[in-house]
């Protein structure tokens, strides 16, 4: 997020797009609702009648995969009606002319045809957004999980820049991270093209910096993304894999393909807290500690680094992931095979649990991170323990952290508008696959359910998968509510009960992706965004069939 969570309440206008915030980020949704209670106007862009639409001033119900067109049309209206922030555009941005030209033809009428959203609504939303002093944009995977994901984000950035909604409180461009430490993993460059702190691996200066800290050479060629890895395995370019805390067999789009690839690996190590579907394919399964059993930090969606603290010991011989990485490192570079491992620290917790830890310890690793990345130079475990979470950039130990980015300038000086041409989703409906499938989360479940499905209240609240289908489509297929159906895409088929509801539009179906017994990602499309390689999990074509009794 460019801005902070606390500032959400200061928004005059909230543009929530591709985010079912009430279910995926409930506490953030509470802040949004507080803003609404204080008088803020809520604009919701979502193909489904999600909870937030009930409080929305304008609900733009776009067809899945048409966000780019809609945003461009909003830009069009703002420029046409001269509502853009001319001072901000002049002083802090460049390429405005390119944007203006790019959206000239993107009229609301043009967008209506593509998105299905009435032109008048687009106009109204654009005006409400542009006229606010403080308007924030909030988005999640509904924007990014498309072959046009990068362009969608660029389009949203155009919108924010056009109206000067960056660098001030109650505004901004705010991706809501879906997992506890997506921000931290990205910051730490578990990304094939980047080094920690978002420095390109292709940048020799950056490599030199890390080679100095690490005392070892750093390869210059960008590596494979997770989504590129599966085809690479099938091509024979990749033979071994270490998967830490992930379950791609369920979470990857076209997951049948992922499973096939993982099976082909010569050697697979999976490290997890449960024997997941992915772990079942492994040659070695390592038992890891969960969040309550280890020390360290998570960085939340507003860039706030916060402590994670050990409450209990891991079960049995399970160990925290850092110790495991340290052990594997030691085994590969130093220790002879077969050497008995001796922990660097062994202790009993106040409650009686026994823990073994292998150095370097989390606070030592964090100290190295602080040296490596200036944005965290002012952060240490000790300081977090003393003061609570800190938002980067936090360049020195006296710095209070940065709740809002880009207040005075952008890292690149002036921010550039990008001309974005709308491209539709890779897969469109046809007579064989006449419905659009979109996927998402439920409040009571999380990701592939390894944790939530083992927590009673949660599992009892949402115990089974379903496919949401509009009554009109249900009638056409002569389906009754709760009836079992088969959902088929070009990549796979699953069986699950139908939930007849007007939450979805005719022609669109929705399946939550948490359930292994009807894994939505067997159906989804693994076509990738050309820039960031994100898969198009949010739109594909399916057909729903009655299962003959």
């Amino acid at each position, binding site marked *: 997020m460019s801005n902070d969570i606390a500032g959400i309440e200061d928004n005059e206008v909230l543009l929530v797009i591709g985010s079912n915030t009430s279910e995926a980020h409930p506490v953030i949704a509470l802040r949004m609702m507080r803003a609404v209670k204080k008088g803020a106007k809520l604009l919701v862009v979502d193909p489904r009648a999600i909870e937030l639409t009930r409080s929305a001033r304008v609900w733009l119900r776009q067809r899945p995969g048409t966000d780019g067109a809609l945003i461009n049309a909003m830009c069009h209206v703002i420029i046409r009606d001269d509502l853009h922030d001319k001072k901000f555009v002049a002083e802090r941005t460049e390429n405005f002319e390119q944007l203006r030209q790019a959206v000239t033809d993107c009229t609301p009428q043009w967008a209506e045809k593509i998105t299905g959203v009435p032109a008048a609504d687009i106009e109204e939303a654009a005006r409400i957004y542009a006229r606010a002093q403080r308007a924030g944009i909030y988005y999640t995977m509904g924007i990014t999980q498309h072959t046009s994901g990068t362009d969608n984000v660029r389009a949203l950035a155009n919108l924010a820049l056009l109206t000067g909604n960056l660098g001030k409180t109650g505004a901004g461009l705010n991706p809501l991270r879906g997992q506890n430490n997506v921000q931290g993993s990205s910051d730490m460059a578990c990304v094939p093209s980047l080094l920690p702190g978002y420095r390109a691996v292709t940048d020799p200066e950056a490599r030199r910096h*890390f080679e100095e800290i690490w005392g070892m050479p750093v390869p210059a060629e960008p590596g494979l993304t997770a989504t590129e890895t599966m085809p690479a395995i099938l091509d024979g370019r990749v033979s071994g894999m270490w998967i830490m805390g992930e379950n791609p067999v369920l979470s990857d789009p076209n997951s049948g393909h992922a499973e096939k690839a993982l099976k082909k690996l010569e050697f697979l190590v999976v490290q997890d*807290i*449960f024997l997941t579907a992915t772990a079942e394919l492994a040659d070695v399964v390592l038992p890891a500690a969960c969040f309550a059993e280890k020390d360290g930090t998570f960085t939340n969606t507003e860039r706030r680094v916060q402590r994670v603290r050990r409450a209990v010991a891991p079960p049995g011989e399970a160990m925290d992931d850092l110790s495991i990485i340290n052990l594997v490192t030691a085994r590969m570079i130093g220790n002879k095979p077969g050497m008995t491992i001796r922990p660097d620290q062994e202790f009993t917790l106040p409650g009686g649990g026994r823990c073994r830890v292998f150095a370097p310890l989390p606070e030592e690793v964090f100290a190295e991170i602080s040296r490596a990345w200036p944005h965290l130079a002012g952060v240490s475990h000790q300081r977090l323990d003393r003061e609570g979470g800190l938002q980067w950039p936090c360049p020195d130990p006296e710095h209070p952290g940065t709740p809002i980015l880009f207040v005075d300038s952008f890292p690149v000086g002036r921010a550039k508008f990008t001309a974005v041409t709308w491209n539709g989703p890779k897969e469109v409906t046809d007579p064989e696959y006449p419905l659009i499938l979109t996927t998402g989360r439920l409040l009571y479940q999380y990701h592939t359910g390894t944790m939530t499905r083992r927590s009673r209240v949660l599992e009892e609240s949402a115990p089974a998968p379903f496919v949401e289908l509009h009554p009109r489509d249900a009638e056409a297929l002569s389906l009754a509510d709760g009836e079992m159906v088969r959902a088929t895409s070009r990549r796979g088929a699953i069986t699950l009960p139908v939930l007849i509801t007007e939450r979805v539009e005719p022609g669109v179906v929705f399946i939550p992706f948490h359930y292994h017994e009807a894994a939505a990602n067997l159906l989804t499309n693994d076509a990738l965004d050309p820039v960031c390689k994100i898969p198009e999990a949010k739109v594909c074509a399916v057909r729903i069939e009655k299962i003959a009794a």
Partner: protein
Amino acid sequence: MSRITLKLNGMEVVAESGLTVLEVARRAGIAIPTLCHFKNRPADHHCGICAVEIADAQRFKLQPLPGADLFPACAVEAVAGMEVQTESKPVIAYRQHRLATLSQTHFGDCKAPCNLTCPGQINVQGYIAHIAKGEYEEALRLIMERNPLPFSVGRVCPRFCETRCRRILVDESLSINHLKRFVADWCRAHEIELNIPKERPTGKRVAVIGGGPAGLTAAYFLTRMGHDATIFEAAPRLGGALRYGFPDYKIPKDVLDYEVDSILKMGISIRLNQRWGKDFTLQDLRDQGFDATFLGIGATVDQNLDIPCDRFENVYTALQFLRLVNDGKKLDLGRRAAVIGGNNIALEVARSLLRFGLEEVTLVYPRAKIEMPAHQRNIHEAEQEGVQFMLMASPLDLCSPPESDARLKLNLIRMKLGEADSRGRREVIPVPDSRLALAVDTVVGSLDQFAVAGTMPGGELEAALELSPKGMIVASPRDFQTNIDGVFAGGDAISGVKSVIQAVVGARRAAINIHAYVMGVEKEAAESRFNFTRGRGFDDVSSQIFAGIETRLREKMPQRPYEVSRQDFDEVKLGFTEKMARREADRCLSCGCTAFDRCELKELDIAYNVNLTKSGMGTEPRYSIDTSHRAIDIDPNKCIYCQRCLRACEYDALELSAAALDQEGRPEGLVIRFKDNCVSCGKCVDSCSTGALNKKQRLVPIQGEPVREVRTTCPYCGTGCQLILKVKGQTVMEATADPEVGPNYGDLCVKGRFGHNFIQHPDRLKRPLIRRRPGGPLVPASWDEALDMIAGNFARIMVEKGADALVGLSSARCTVEENYAFQKFFRTVVGTNNVDHCARY
């Protein structure tokens, strides 16, 4: 922001303007109690507890609380020049009155009857609830908070708790003691190490004389408190009455050895074969630098049979006999035996005699069976095994020459009941001319046991030690100290023979006093006995509270048939299986309040000395308990209508209303209901001032056990809500949030508050697994094997196909440090940039 100056309790305070008196006081470090206050959401119906006195109140045009010249601090804005008294007499009296009033309609049990009845004050409901949840290790930990001998007590406890179990009013009491034994045995079978935590070493040394239940218990608690305890035991092995008093069929020796070892493992020194008074004296201990001494020598001296000719061969006293049995001595006992006495020890003697193959074992007692001091359960078992009872008979002498086929002739006389004495107990008197004789080969007398025969040998201190006329050590009931400074005593040595749990309790209390003595500190105040109850006795309990509970009889303890069990010394009772234990634990009615640790009404009642017996409490259920919500149970009988739940709810998903309020502002016709739009975030429960709202999963009441609050970050979405994990032992009991800490400021979603069962889920991976051959199954392996396999295969692939043939996939669920280390491993050790994480899906 402007500032104002006012006086709080005579003290000048400068405060921000616009705040309430309550908030100004809070910031000045003066806590004003309240039951209804909720930050930033004022109440429209005041509980009145935050009453304060304000001088010259007319000046500020304030609305006083009904019936008093006092004002609600939560509603009055602090104004310059105000003079506020928060602790004056009228204030205290008013608060006390309000608390008493609110308590009058509060209907519930703070602690369950079983907890209250247990002499050990064990959190019985708590460990049963842990068992019901499958948390056996935690159940044992909870028991061990109060009782270090769960194996033994779980086998021989008289089970005071079970007599008060409310389930009796439905069908049968719970088999509480069998459950205790189950968890102890389960943890042993599963090689669970509890690693009982100890305080930091104090450097104080305490001598514990006697290695029986009292001595072991004292040493255990002293060690937990950080002291250095040394046990001096006269016998060659530890255990005392557990080893030498209870035969193997009750407490198998391997079980006892395990139990003793698990206590010693904490770091307790032992000196065996050291008899006090013979091998060392109290003065010796002082000279050796012990800071205090605990006497836990038990009551091991038998009272003689005291009938003419009682010194013959083949006549034993009870403990002498049991020691021989438990030492495995070969004894010639003949064919028939008589046991004289009706206490529990007499029954163990009789049952042991049967096991030596005697044809006839007769227990002689001068009264009826029902009047025997032994537990009826023990009597029944002895009877089932074939012990015969000669009741209403008393021994006269052993002087007559025996008949040819016997070694002894026991002369007896019949007894009858005489007139009642002043206490109503009827004496037994001999029936004239009713003599009869028993021809036996062995006689064992079990009349009574005491601590010291005559005077205590040793030195001056021993000579000065005060003993009771019956031969017990005299210790103050207040602090367990004897008349010798620094010498404490507990267990059977001061009380005479009682149950093991009673020895445990005495020794624990003594240990607490020894701690205070050696550290020179005040003893911690005993836990308040304050308790709401839905009925002290069974007669006081309204049957309505059992509405809808189906009859389900208790699990039967599997045991060997008596005709078989009497033939050897193997254990008779076999123990519950896991399934039986779970089923039995599920029968618990959970009488005690699971909000015990957070109930503010109880806390304030105690602080303001509310006397429920005088002022009254709810006696009848007025509402039924609503368990229809998936996460939260509602018991309106406990509601004091503070309305915090209503104000806490962020979703307007709660309905709370009263048909009317009585004169005191208490609700009548209360309705508490979750609406359909409830998202189970649970904030209402965490805001409830009593146990009217309860988390279903929080089955285990926390009653003064050590609880840690660990502050951490939620593992679900990217909001990064700050959590407080309440941890007891090795179990995360619940998750809450601090209203003062961002980014969530007390808010959590259903996952944050209720989604943590997975931590302790049995499916968790506990050992590395490897595939020993391609296509083979995943099998458990050591870390070394797993690491070798990884290092070997990674190295091989790097050599054969290059570094880029390896890929790492990291996780946004792991920490910053782990992600950093993971990519560093791939970039440096492997030498590839093939490392990614899951942000894209």
